[in-house]
């Protein structure tokens, strides 16, 4: 209770501080490009914009919602040709091409403001490139193991505390005629979740980040160690068959029908599993267990962001909008269960009472001392990630090809990072 009260007071205080520049009635134009194209996030964003509009009735806001996939191909185009003032994107390495091309505005000044510096500290690293900040986050979500609690209970299993328990659980699961984990690697990135976690649990967050920067050879013994751990699961047949032909949605029936014990994925997995009829009593969440003692737990939590276009016309209005959307009050609203249903990035915000969001918030705020990564394909450069993820998929099918696979990935790394 104490902390809730504190948080409320803090949020009120910051809201007042933040509201004052906004209530100065901005004038002129503000053009916003959004990739939140599906109905629920779209309504959330539009409601947020209309609240901002109500504070600034004189401001002429134009919003352009673009389909999320199309957005990824169009962003470079509109940033250079027909730049909006504010736009959505993703944190970490995904920003690199636009930062390098001078298309994103440096917003380090915003991060220097006390209200933002204090309450957004947890995601600052994800928005920092070359020592500067290039945008603000607006939501993130946790990744972890979503598992069938009813099946675990039936077999007398509990949430694994370390890797050996994870393997023992898996043995029991296999003995009962089920698979341990479902996965659909058709679009590759789901395999990267396993790699990310096994690598971070085997070598730690700092190692993974220097790996992402290209400082570790893919043929290094440390990488072999990671794959060896992963191979234990692969060789015992922990994963469902034919996963290379399924996307992640197509891999869900195994969990729904009780043919697989769980899935390692982001919190967005919960909604379709609930739609399919699983109750909160049947479905539960646990953090990916520790593998090597002494390695600090680190998590991957993909962060979605807002940026200012360097070629935009109304940068003061854009800054005011960014300040507004990270404010504790707005963060509480847009991330609540009726809206995005994810974790707010402002530490002074209230958290949705959804079981999984609560568990994620707790995990990210108190049990991830090592650091918070984005996700393999957001931390590693696109080309590197693609080659590596293809290799991971192959490894999950033919673990004996490991030497070959790693040499192939390594040659890509050498091409990519050699100056």
């Amino acid at each position, binding site marked *: 209770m104490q902390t809730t009260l504190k948080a409320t007071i803090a949020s009120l205080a910051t809201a007042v501080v933040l509201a004052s520049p906004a209530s100065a009635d901005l004038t002129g134009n503000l053009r916003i490009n959004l990739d939140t*194209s599906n109905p*629920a*996030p779209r309504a959330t964003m539009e409601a947020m914009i209309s609240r901002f509009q109500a504070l600034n009735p004189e401001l002429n806001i134009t919003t352009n919602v673009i389909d999320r*996939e199309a957005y990824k191909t169009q962003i470079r*185009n509109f940033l250079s040709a027909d730049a909006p003032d504010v736009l959505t994107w993703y944190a970490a390495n995904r920003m690199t091409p636009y930062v390098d091309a001078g298309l994103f505005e440096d917003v380090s000044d915003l991060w220097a403001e006390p209200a933002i510096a204090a309450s957004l500290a947890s995601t600052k690293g994800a928005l920092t490139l070359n020592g500067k900040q290039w945008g603000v986050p607006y939501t993130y979500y946790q990744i972890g193991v979503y598992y069938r609690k009813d099946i675990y209970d039936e077999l007398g299993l509990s949430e694994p505390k370390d890797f050996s328990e994870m393997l023992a659980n898996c043995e029991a699961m296999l003995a009962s005629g089920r698979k341990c984990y479902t996965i659909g690697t058709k679009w590759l990135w789901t395999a990267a979740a396993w790699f990310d976690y096994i690598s971070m649990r085997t070598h730690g967050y700092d190692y993974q980040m220097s790996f992402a920067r290209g400082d570790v050879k893919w043929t290094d013994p440390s990488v072999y160690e990671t794959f060896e751990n992963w191979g234990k699961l692969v060789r015992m047949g922990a994963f469902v068959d034919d996963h290379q032909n399924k996307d992640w949605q197509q891999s869900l029936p*195994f969990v729904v029908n009780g043919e697989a014990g769980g899935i390692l994925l982001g919190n967005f997995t919960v909604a*379709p599993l609930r739609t399919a009829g699983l109750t909160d009593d049947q479905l539960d969440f646990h953090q990916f267990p520790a593998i090597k003692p002494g390695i600090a737990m680190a998590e991957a939590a993909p962060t979605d962001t807002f940026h200012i276009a360097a070629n935009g016309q109304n940068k003061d209005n854009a800054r005011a909008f960014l300040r507004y959307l990270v404010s504790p009050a707005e963060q509480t609203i847009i991330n609540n269960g009726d809206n995005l249903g994810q974790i707010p990035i402002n530490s002074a915000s209230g958290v949705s009472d959804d079981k999984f969001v609560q568990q994620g918030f707790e995990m990210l705020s108190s049990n991830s001392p090592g650091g918070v990564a984005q996700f393999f394909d957001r931390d590693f450069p696109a080309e590197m990630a693609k080659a590596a993820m293809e290799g991971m998929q192959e490894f999950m099918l033919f673990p004996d090809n490991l030497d070959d696979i790693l040499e192939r990935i390594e040659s890509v790394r050498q091409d990519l990072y050699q100056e």
Partner: protein
Amino acid sequence: MFPKPIEKSSRAWQLSYQALLPLAMLLWLAPLLAVALFSIRPDADFITGNYWGWPSSFEMIKNYSMVFTSAMPRYILNSFLITIPTVIGALTLSCMTGFALGIYKFRGNLLIFFMFIAGNFVPFQILMVPVRDLTLDMGLYNTKTGLVLFHIAFQTGFCTLFMRNFIKALPFELIEAARVEGIAEWRIFWYVVLPLMKPAIAALSVLIFTFIWNDYFWAIVLTQGENSQPVTAGITSFNAQYRAMYHLMSAGSIIAALPPVLMFFLMQKHFIAGLTLGAVK
């Protein structure tokens, strides 16, 4: 050359043919049937892995009303606003160019005609960057006008080929007779040639309508967002942030496919004529 009519073959062969035909058709139509079936399924059927079985509930009204309350009507309207002006523009221009190239004998006639045809040999993907820069410089980027103008420019070459060949096949005596009567050239075009071109116009308009309606490439290169994008590019707007809404996309696809399908059934005769137009001289 032609296959032997089935009536002339043995009874056994006829029977097996009659049995295999529906099977082959079912196989052929399976993807389409799946889309139709998915459009009336609830979201949960996909997640529980019920792809081909009986729908767990029928959500036809819910899915289709979702389609109509989303941005889909807007995208469909855009498609019409892009397709119809393109059809009119391309046909108007190609009737005139076809007339000029088919009737008048002047130096360079063949050269100009070849230039129209040459446009069809350029793989349009290589035009992506220059066309995008061009529309940007003209201030037409992300507008329906820009897309319409480009489609007209690109389709006119193809239409001119057909129109010119069609006009060339008309009896030249008709035009000579009119000239003897002292009729102005533009009146010859309007009162003599144009009425005779009606079948070609009908056939081409059906063809161009389906071409442009189904265009996806230029829609995503030259436009963005629901203010200007046609339905082919807009259909994926049903996809959620993290997952694909197959039931809604199926319903949306069926709605989006209706105009060209209707067009085809209403003008089937012309459509088939259009496919062979220019092929036989």
